[in-house]
């Protein structure tokens, strides 16, 4: 299990780095110095480096709203898994990365990850399978910078299906992790 998840996570980390680069402001190229004929060279005037803002207004209300804003990726809380598989599929990596960023930026935030399994087989073994899924996402979040103390990973086994029919289309919806933030559970 460990060996399978490592490449995925390193890819996820790279993607995060990449995203960070592309959003870096363009203004940090050195500004051209003014030409003054043959006069003695004056001390070079350097452009100000961009000063980061401490934005207290962005805290609390706005961020909590982001978790519920349907246009914000943070409102996506479920990660679905293939049959008998426990790695995070490509389509869910951005969701996991977004939540890792949120947890990193909000060290006081707490998350409960509930892993789930489809209905086939033993209820208790399915608790184990759901736990393996929730542990997978927890580990990914921690590798992406969240703190262990912020996240509790648990399993609901097959007990809380999203879909209650008997067949693969339904089972696929039930093999999932749900991420809940403090106050939501």
């Amino acid at each position, binding site marked *: *299990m460990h060996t399978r998840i490592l490449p995925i996570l390193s890819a996820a980390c790279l993607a995060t780095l990449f995203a960070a680069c592309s959003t870096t402001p363009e203004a940090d190229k050195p500004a051209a110095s003014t030409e003054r004929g043959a006069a003695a060279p004056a001390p070079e005037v350097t452009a100000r480096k961009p000063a980061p803002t401490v934005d207290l207004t962005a805290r609390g209300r706005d961020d909590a709203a982001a978790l519920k804003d349907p246009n914000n990726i943070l409102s996506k809380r479920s990660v679905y898994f293939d049959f008998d598989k426990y790695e995070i599929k490509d389509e869910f990596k951005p969701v996991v990365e977004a939540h890792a960023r949120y947890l990193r930026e909000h060290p006081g935030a707490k998350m409960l990850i*509930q892993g789930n399994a489809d209905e086939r087989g033993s*209820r*208790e073994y399915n*608790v*184990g399978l759901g736990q393996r899924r929730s542990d997978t996402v927890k580990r990914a979040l921690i590798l992406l910078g969240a703190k262990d103390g912020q996240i*509790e990973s648990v399993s609901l*086994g097959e007990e809380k299906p999203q879909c209650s029919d008997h067949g693969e289309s339904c089972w696929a919806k039930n093999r999932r992790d749900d991420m809940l933030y403090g106050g939501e*559970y």
Partner: protein
Amino acid sequence: MQSFRLWFVCALLFAPAARAQLSIEITGAGAQRTPIAVAPFAGENTLAPSLSAIIRSDLERSGLFRILEVPLLQPALTEASALNYAEWRARLADALVVGSLVALPGGRFETRVRVDDTVKQARLGAVALPTTREALRAVGHRAADYVYEKLTGEKGVFSTLIAYVVKRGNAYELQIADADGMGDQTILKSYEPIISPAWSPDGRRIAYVSFENKKPVVYVHSIQDAKRTVAANFRGSNSAPAWSPDGSRLAVTLSREGGSQIFVMAPNGSGLRRLTTSQAIDTEPRYSPDGRWIYFTSDRGGTPQIYRMSATGGEPQRITFEGSYNVTPRPSPDGKTLAYIARNGGKFQVAILDLANRQVQVITDSDRDESPSFAPNGRMILLATVVNGRGVLSAVSSDGRVKQRLTTTSGDVREPAWGPFID
């Protein structure tokens, strides 16, 4: 296999009001059933339900007896009557049960039961049971246990209890009932799932997993006073409780250290000690009856299989080898066999493994079986399965011959656990 349907008349006649009670349907019986006559008990009409009817239905349900019709006898036979063995042989009875319900001073009663072998023409035994109006059904089961033991040499389980979970709508109820499904009582009702009930060896408490805190937590519930204590609520998931045979320890599956691993602790959660150390799922622990071993499910070999380790931990040895999905180990009360759930071509069925010669026998023909649970005498196994899309309980004899189905009028029934002998 002979198959017939028999709804117990007494279940219909004496069901208290219209309740969603379990009723039992026999769907298969033993090949060799001993023909037996249970005469109406003298004086039993003064109290309902009828004692002889309870004894008949209990014996019938065991699958070991064929209950013969008894003509109206005048005067009624009692335990003191002189029996005409030849006459009962002529009615094809190998055994005869007679008795009486006697009113004593002070409003109390006594139930007297006598068992005779009509082939050997000998009395096998007689007993008198103190009886109250309220406990009449319990006395009937005690009397049936007495008859069963006299005739088979092994203890009867008619006066034991079963526990199970009923899901109706979005509510879950943990119930206990007589082994015949009568007298059900709800001991816990919740809007969140309840799984894995496990009786303490003294039959006074039930450990189970409740999801009322949005995660699995193990509780120990005292039946008489409805006191619940948290046994395991560590960070992560807490599940799969199993009592040690002396009741002093509880094995559980915890994810507190990552993954699903087996730990052991006192039933109040103290003295926690980790027993397994793997990267796999290790769960569903069960003690052997002698307390020396813990059987459990693990996918450490790639697929879920049953393993066994010393009850104090140590290197596990693999027990199941056939097939790619063998889970939920349940050692028989004599420790000689192991019941578990095996997947055979997409069907989940109860299998029995002989631990001495390693022979495996699949004993059910249903396809979504779960949670097998031995009767304390080892003769029957209670299990959950699905019929027509609904969860029902069924019971099968450990040789696979006798089959019963326990159904309710509404709801899904699952997670059965057969209680211990209570003295």
